[in-house]
């Protein structure tokens, strides 16, 4: 009897802890110094953050403000914001976020300070110098909730040596790409002639360039879900088909680290991915074919080449921060013309027009990458995922037909289901 009481008590306690696991997260508070003189800067793992970290002593010397800078992985960061901002914490001052993923939700939640007045105050800092698409990515209504820091566009990574051995030019159209992939596959049956993200949420951003290039979009002119349009279905079938026929096994489980890993091993010939992965692709310490990686524009589909061209990161101020003046000083410093130029020279494509017009700002970038970035600046689409508050759920919905295509299922049917689910999410936000 006694044993069973102990057993019962233990079981109950263990069972209860299952439920407590989530709620318990809210309890863990760091020994942060919110309201004191220290400025808490929370950043994502990105080359921009490394560049800022390096330059930080300048800021501390200039202003006398002590900065506590922390860098987290994407998912950790999302969790941290979820927990701390829900608890109205003042432990975060400056926060790095992804405009297309977070701006709508964070501003709806009133988690970000309205910077509309700050950005126009200082003519020398010059808000108008930021690219228009970058400014609009952090503007909700007439509120500016952040300052853009880094831009990204879609590119096609390819193996120069394999292409040369096959006697092929860099493919300029989707049909040429298919032909090139086919030929390289025949000549090199041991490698994967094409590779791309296939995990349904992760794949959405890279799929977007194909969707646009085939003449589709997430929503139509009336704002209705349109991922079951003939154009969208064609795009799903095209990209999914290449992955199915020529991609690595297990593609439906792959995000960029997996595909990039295979490319670094010399196992992938063509790979559409974000320009921010460039350093990874050509890093000789990670790959012995690094010098054979070339960068080309996304090939033209029936609607031309329409890659995404986005502001992938911005920084803003936590509305619960008690250190907002210093936080703004930090943002102003980190996004000044001088620093954007400096960071761009460290391979972080920035959002300032003047830096792109300045030879000093472009000379550090490799010629092929620079050419693609500049072209995409003119022809690119300013979003790489559906634009709504429930973006995470929407990505899962619109990514599903691609998974179906990779698995060789009925894409039209999957697109219809996805469209209904996506429309449902859009309706909820009306």
């Amino acid at each position, binding site marked *: 009897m006694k*044993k*069973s009481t102990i*057993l*019962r008590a*233990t*079981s*109950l*306690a*263990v*069972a*209860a*802890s*299952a*439920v*407590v*696991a*989530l*709620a*318990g997260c809210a*309890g863990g508070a760091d020994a942060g110094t919110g309201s004191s003189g220290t400025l808490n800067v929370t950043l994502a793992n990105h080359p921009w953050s490394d560049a800022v970290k390096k330059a930080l002593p300048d800021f501390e010397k200039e202003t006398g403000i002590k900065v506590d800078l922390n860098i987290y992985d994407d*998912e950790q960061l*999302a*969790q941290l914001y*979820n927990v701390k*901002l*829900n*608890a*109205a914490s003042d432990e975060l001052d400056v926060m790095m976020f992804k405009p297309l993923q977070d701006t709508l*939700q964070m501003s*709806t*939640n*009133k*988690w970000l300070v309205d910077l509309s007045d700050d950005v126009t105050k200082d003519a020398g800092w010059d808000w108008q110098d930021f690219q228009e698409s970058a400014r609009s990515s952090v503007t909700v209504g007439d509120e500016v909730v952040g300052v853009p820091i880094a831009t990204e566009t879609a590119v096609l990574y390819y193996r120069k040596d394999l292409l040369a051995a096959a006697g092929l030019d860099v493919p300029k159209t989707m049909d040429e790409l298919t032909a090139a992939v086919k030929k390289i596959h025949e000549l090199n049956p041991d490698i*994967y002639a094409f590779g791309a993200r*296939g*995990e*349904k*949420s992760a794949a959405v951003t890279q799929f977007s360039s194909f969707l646009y290039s085939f003449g589709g979009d997430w929503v139509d002119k009336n704002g209705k879900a349109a991922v079951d349009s003939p154009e969208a279905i064609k795009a799903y079938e095209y990209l999914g088909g290449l992955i199915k026929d020529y991609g*690595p*096994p*297990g*593609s*439906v*489980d*792959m995000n960029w680290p*997996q595909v990039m*890993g*295979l490319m670094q*091993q010399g*196992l992938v010939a063509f790979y559409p991915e974000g320009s921010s992965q460039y350093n990874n692709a050509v890093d000789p310490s990670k790959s012995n074919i690094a010098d054979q990686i070339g960068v080309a524009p996304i090939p033209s589909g029936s609607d031309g080449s329409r890659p995404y061209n986005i502001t992938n990161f911005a920084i803003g101020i936590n509305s619960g921060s008690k250190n907002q003046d210093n936080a703004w000083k930090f943002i102003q410093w980190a996004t000044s013309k001088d620093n954007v130029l400096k960071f761009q020279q460290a391979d972080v494509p920035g959002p300032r027009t003047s830096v792109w017009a300045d030879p000093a700002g472009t000379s550090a970038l490799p010629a092929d990458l620079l050419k693609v970035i500049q072209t995409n600046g003119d022809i690119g689409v300013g979003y790489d995922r559906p634009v709504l*508050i*429930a973006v*995470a*759920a929407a990505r*899962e919905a619109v*990514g*599903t037909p691609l*998974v179906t295509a990779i698995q060789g299922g009925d894409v039209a049917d999957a697109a219809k289901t996805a469209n209904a689910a996506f429309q449902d999410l859009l309706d909820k936000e009306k």
Partner: protein
Amino acid sequence: MTQTNLRGSQFGSSLSIWANRHRKWIFAGPAVIFVAALIIIPLSYTIYLSFTDAANSLRAEINFIGFENYVAVLTDTTRFWPAVGRTVTFTVGVVAVELALGMGIALLLRRPFRGERIVRGIILLPLVATPIAVGMMWRLIFEPSIGFANQLLNWFGLPDNGWISDPNQALPTLMFVDIWQWTPMMVLILLAGLTSLPDEPDEAARVDGASAFQRFRYVTLPLLMPALIAAVVLRSIDAFKTFDILYATKGTGGGSLHEVETVNIYAYGENFLYSRYGLASAVLVVFFAMVLILVAIQLLRRKKDY
């Protein structure tokens, strides 16, 4: 006690009488407060949230919506019930195999032998490894193009497998990882139970001419039952809640087809990815009820037996 400090000591003694009378509560107090702070408060908050439409921001206006979340959860046949199915498959599968393996290994380790300590030490290694690191390690091993598992198959002339990345094989593969990691725990508990058994009944059975299997089936097993049930209950509850290796290998959502999405992973996604706190809380409360029912069945069955 002297006359002068009578008043003071009167107070002191009444306090000590009171303390003496309520010593049960005073000694248990710290533990009760601890439990209240760490379990009851978060649990109540979760139950409260489950009846609201809390989403996006907990600082925004939260409305009571009655049982709407529960209806949504319990009628959800695309995510919730398949997740329950996977949770049950996972739990029953791993606990059954771990019990069988654990029992076998414990019986082998029961008698003293040369190198006993080294063998025991090695067997316990998976148990002390960090689950996230374990997940990462197995994900690399099972990588279909460059991983070790497929190389091993190829050496034996067998074709490649998709393992964790193949939606049909992911769950069984991860069950294998769980079995690899948690069988030692079974071994530990069963071995402790075996060592504490008296030798006499076994010897008596031997004298009576019982075979090795009969001695195990009719002597060792019944005597071991309390330890065995404790091991199965603890391990089942733990397996039911498995989160880390699933999350580390397949991420939020449990893969492109939700192929390893258990109830825990589903609730996590609802909460941290979709920010639907009300719905996520309802999922967890339902999950909690399921665990409670499991425990209750187990306890009732025990009462009937003994």
